[in-house]
């Protein structure tokens, strides 16, 4: 029995969360540093996973498998494939920056409460960082779970800490004052929770259905991904078309809410708008990836025929999300909501790539998950720094920042350029791969999607022009430029964006084989180029 590396990866932040929560109220700073160190340690572990992972080895590696709930045919099964590996890396890498960026986000809440509660039993700071680590742990395990039930449990459970993060530590920068802010905040939190809970419960029905089917056909019900795929391969398991489609829909619905896909997206702008920037990053850059990841691993892996059957609709919805999200981003007056809608557009690209069923599309989609994580992190976190200075989220309240805070403006611009996927920065690669992958199978969709890069440029540049350029607006003059801590957040992420834009090979090498496996699940091959087809 070798060292359970994957468990360790997930358990470390969980333990860190408990420890952080236990820090006495007085030592706020201790809690922060503890959380930061834990998250960094997690990065190390994740790195170990990446190193130990052999791209050309088995599909799932470093597997662990223990009996858990025999009655439900549930096992504690972990395993990492190429796609999971990069996403684990992404999560582990982003969290320290999230923590660092949110260094002071809970403090003010803390101070308010100190006066009111004697003995300071209310410890927002500890809570804030503990919750972040808890989310990390759950996200990590859902990237690693190869047992549908295990995945489902954490897919659902992660809603709770997030819910508290959104509702409890909202963005105090609100144009209508504290009262309205807290109202909006809890509305956003509840909306987020109910949306995702509804999705999760629908999925629960499908999960139960899956058990019923496997129990019916394999003698005893199982949730093990490998077992099911094998049984499919050797024909022991053969779902009735109708059943498979229903189950697929059940799963897809939940993931489409998480992802989020038009028209199930409306929770995201509220959640991202009202929560603090780091939490917003946590949601869109990390947690939502679980949705797209799960489409790739579970929807395609478990229900290949149904996925094929649903492809046209999904593609159209994805295309709508792309255009719709971009157009709405153009129409926003609130910086964070703008970024949220931009993300919706990008999730459209990811889903497009997944369901294009080509290695470029799915490889691109996987890279996209990583790159979108990084680019949104930069854009959103810098936006957060900006907002924390001026205390407003309205674009109209800004102008000429670039004059007083050039470094801030510069980082913001880089984030923006990444968002509009400028060549040389990482997102370009993934976006182009998705487009090519889509185009090679569905030219029309590919072309329309390609055309939207103009819209992306539009909302990014308009945002930049309105906030950063022009004469310095009142309330902006004397705005401080990025502080060391903030620079420590922005700079490494930007460096990463550039590096992955110039030399993404390390990632692609890991991802490609995994994508091949997924494609073989759905029995698809890349269409050959005409020239060779002709020969």
């Amino acid at each position, binding site marked *: 029995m070798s060292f359970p590396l994957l468990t360790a990866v997930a358990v470390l932040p969980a333990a860190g969360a408990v420890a952080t929560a236990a820090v006495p109220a007085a030592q706020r700073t201790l809690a922060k540093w503890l959380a930061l160190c834990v998250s960094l340690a997690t990065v190390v572990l994740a790195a170990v996973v990446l190193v130990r992972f052999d791209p050309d080895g088995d599909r799932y590696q470093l597997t662990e498998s223990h*009996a*858990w*709930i*025999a*009655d*439900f045919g549930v096992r504690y099964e972990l395993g990492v494939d190429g796609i999971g590996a990069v996403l684990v890396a992404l999560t582990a890498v982003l969290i320290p920056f999230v923590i660092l960026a949110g260094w002071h986000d809970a403090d003010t809440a803390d101070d308010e*409460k100190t006066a*009111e*509660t004697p003995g300071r*039993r*209310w*410890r927002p700071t500890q809570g804030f960082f503990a919750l972040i680590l808890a989310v990390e742990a759950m996200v990590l395990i859902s990237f690693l779970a190869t047992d549908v039930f295990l995945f*489902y*449990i*954490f897919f*659902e*459970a992660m*809603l*709770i800490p997030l*819910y*508290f993060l959104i*509702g*409890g530590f909202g963005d105090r920068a609100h144009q209508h004052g504290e009262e309205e802010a*807290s109202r909006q*905040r*809890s509305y956003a*939190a*509840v909306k987020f*929770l*109910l949306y995702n*809970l*509804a999705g999760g*419960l*629908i999925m*629960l*029905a499908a999960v*139960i*259905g899956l*058990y*019923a089917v496997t*129990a*019916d056909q394999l003698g005893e019900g199982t949730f093990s991904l490998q077992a099911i795929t094998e049984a499919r391969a050797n024909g022991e398991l053969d779902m009735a078309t109708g059943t498979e489609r229903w189950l697929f829909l059940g799963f897809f619905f939940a993931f489409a809410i998480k992802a989020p896909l038009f028209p199930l997206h409306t929770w995201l702008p509220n959640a991202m708008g009202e929560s603090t920037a780091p939490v917003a990053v946590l949601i869109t850059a990390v947690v939502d990836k679980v949705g797209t990841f799960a489409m790739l691993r579970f929807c395609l892996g478990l229900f290949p025929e149904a996925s094929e059957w649903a492809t046209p609709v999904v593609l159209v919805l994805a295309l709508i999300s792309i255009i719709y999200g971009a157009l709405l981003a153009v129409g926003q007056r609130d910086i964070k909501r703008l970024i949220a809608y931009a993300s919706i557009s990008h999730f459209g690209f990811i889903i497009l790539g997944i369901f294009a069923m080509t290695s470029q599309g799915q490889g691109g989609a996987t890279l996209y998950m990583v790159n979108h994580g990084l680019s949104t992190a930069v854009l959103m976190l810098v936006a957060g720094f900006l907002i924390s200075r001026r205390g407003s989220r309205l674009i109209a309240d800004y102008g000429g920042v670039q004059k007083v805070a050039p470094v801030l403006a510069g980082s913001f611009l880089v984030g923006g350029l990444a968002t509009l996927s400028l060549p040389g920065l990482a997102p370009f690669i993934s976006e182009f791969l998705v487009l090519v992958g889509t185009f090679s199978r569905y030219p029309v969709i590919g072309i329309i999607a390609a055309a939207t890069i103009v819209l992306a440029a539009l909302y990014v540049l308009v945002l930049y022009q309105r906030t950063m350029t022009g004469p310095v607006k009142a309330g902006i003059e004397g705005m401080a430029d990025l502080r060391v801590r903030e620079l420590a957040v922005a700079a490494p992420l930007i460096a990463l964006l550039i590096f992955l834009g110039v030399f993404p090979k390390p990632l692609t090498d890991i991802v490609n084989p995994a994508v091949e496996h997924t494609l073989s699940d759905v029995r698809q091959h890349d269409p050959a180029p005409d020239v060779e087809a002709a020969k």
Partner: protein
Amino acid sequence: MSTTQSLHSLWTSAAAEPDKIPSPHIEYAQLSPTLIVLGAALVGILIEAFVPRRARYNAQVVLAIAGLASAFAAVIALALDGYGTTKAKIAAMGAIAVDGPALFLQGTILLVGVVAVFTFAERRLDPKKHGNHVDSFTPQAAATPGGEAEREAARAGFTTTEVFPLALFAIAGMLIFPAANDLLTLFIALEVFSLPLYILCALARRNRLMSQEAAVKYFLLGAFSSAFLLFGIALLYGYAGAVDYSSIARVVSNSEANVDPALAGTMGNDALLLIGGAMILVGMLFKVGAVPFHMWTPDVYQGAPTPVTGLMASATKVAGFGALLRLLYVVLPGLRWDWEPVMWGAAIITMLGGAIVAITQTDIKRMLAYSSIAHAGFMLAGVIATSEDGVSSVLFYLAAYSFVTLGAFAVVTLVRDAGGEATHLSKWAGLGRRSPLVAAVFAVFLLAFAGIPLTSGFTGKFAVFKAAAESGAGALVVIGVISSAIAAFFYIRVIVLMFFQEPKVDGPSVAVPSPMTITAITVGVAVTVVLGVAPQYFLDLAGQAGVFVR
């Protein structure tokens, strides 16, 4: 043979010499759990009669806990002896079954009982009155609310220690109810646990008017429903000519309707059976609080003293469902095709009704009442599965649910303001800011109610829905899922209230309870989490206990 002859033979049999009557043979060992509790209850009465007032409280508490604990020990012993599985048998001349479900449910009821007694015995929540501890029960039930007599009693430091024997009687009845193996025992057990509960409901120290109102409503409706039950029993007896489950089942299955030809001439033989069965179901569904027989639940839960509510909400449900399961699985399996559709209907409206109405509740106890209705619906879904899985899933659900409920109500007793418990939701605003721990604990219970993974609520729900799905009740699962989505909304609402809203200046304070309530709550949390994270052992337990003896 003709009527007259049978009549004659009746006379003769009556006239036969008395020594022919065989003395019934009772397996005291197998019945020990019930007997212990009943004994303890009787001793309690004696204590009320002879022990000086000062000592009564301690004596009663010790006695009650000891009695329940030893009864639980007895259950364990029986289970280890294999009475749950291999040696399952019908004891007491066919009156009481000693089998898996019975033992499992009795064990659950006893544990719940112990915890409930803890909350009964809590007397630190309110400041001392006239130098005496006060608990949640009125000093003198007979005194008019706010009247001189009441004040007298309070000054004299009276306490209603009768609640402990009453609770013990009720629990004893609940122990018999799911084990009852003939209709007579069923009826008696029902009354034995109902009557003490009626009284307990009336004993609240605060809001006595509401408490009495609750008692009246509960009593009248309870009596009404038991009348239905009894009439159903009569008809069933008329159909089968026997009252013990096994023979009725025999008659039902190979439907050798031994109704008198005269009767047969006038009505289809099965009419008796069907009507009778339906009316018995009415009685059962009333006890488990299923729509449309649920309407007593909110009022009674709200009016009754919270510890009593806890006991009712948890133990009564357990007992009720136990009896329902036995009835449907042992007596009426032959009628499956007749009662299944009806139960489908009941389950659906119960799930949806409970969830929907709960949304707009403003009183935490009423809200929990409606949620208990919704949960009854989920369990009915498991009952309908009519498979061994179905039984064990419901058993598990009961165990999980009852502890969550008890814990939740225990927390409710802690949140108090000048007027006693502050049960109005608006008063819970910002509780999470004032006392994060209590709020967090309550949040755990709420999440369990909502069926969030890693809580017992999720495991139970999954087990039940799984059983339902496997027996082809997919639609039921979907509806269940939808209604749990609806239900989630109001659980979440409370959490929002507690954590995301600013505390009111005149908001309630959280009383510092005695170790007893703390134990009660701790047990609740522990069970909730354990059954959520590592439920396998208990699922096995329920799984082994899934077979009824016939």
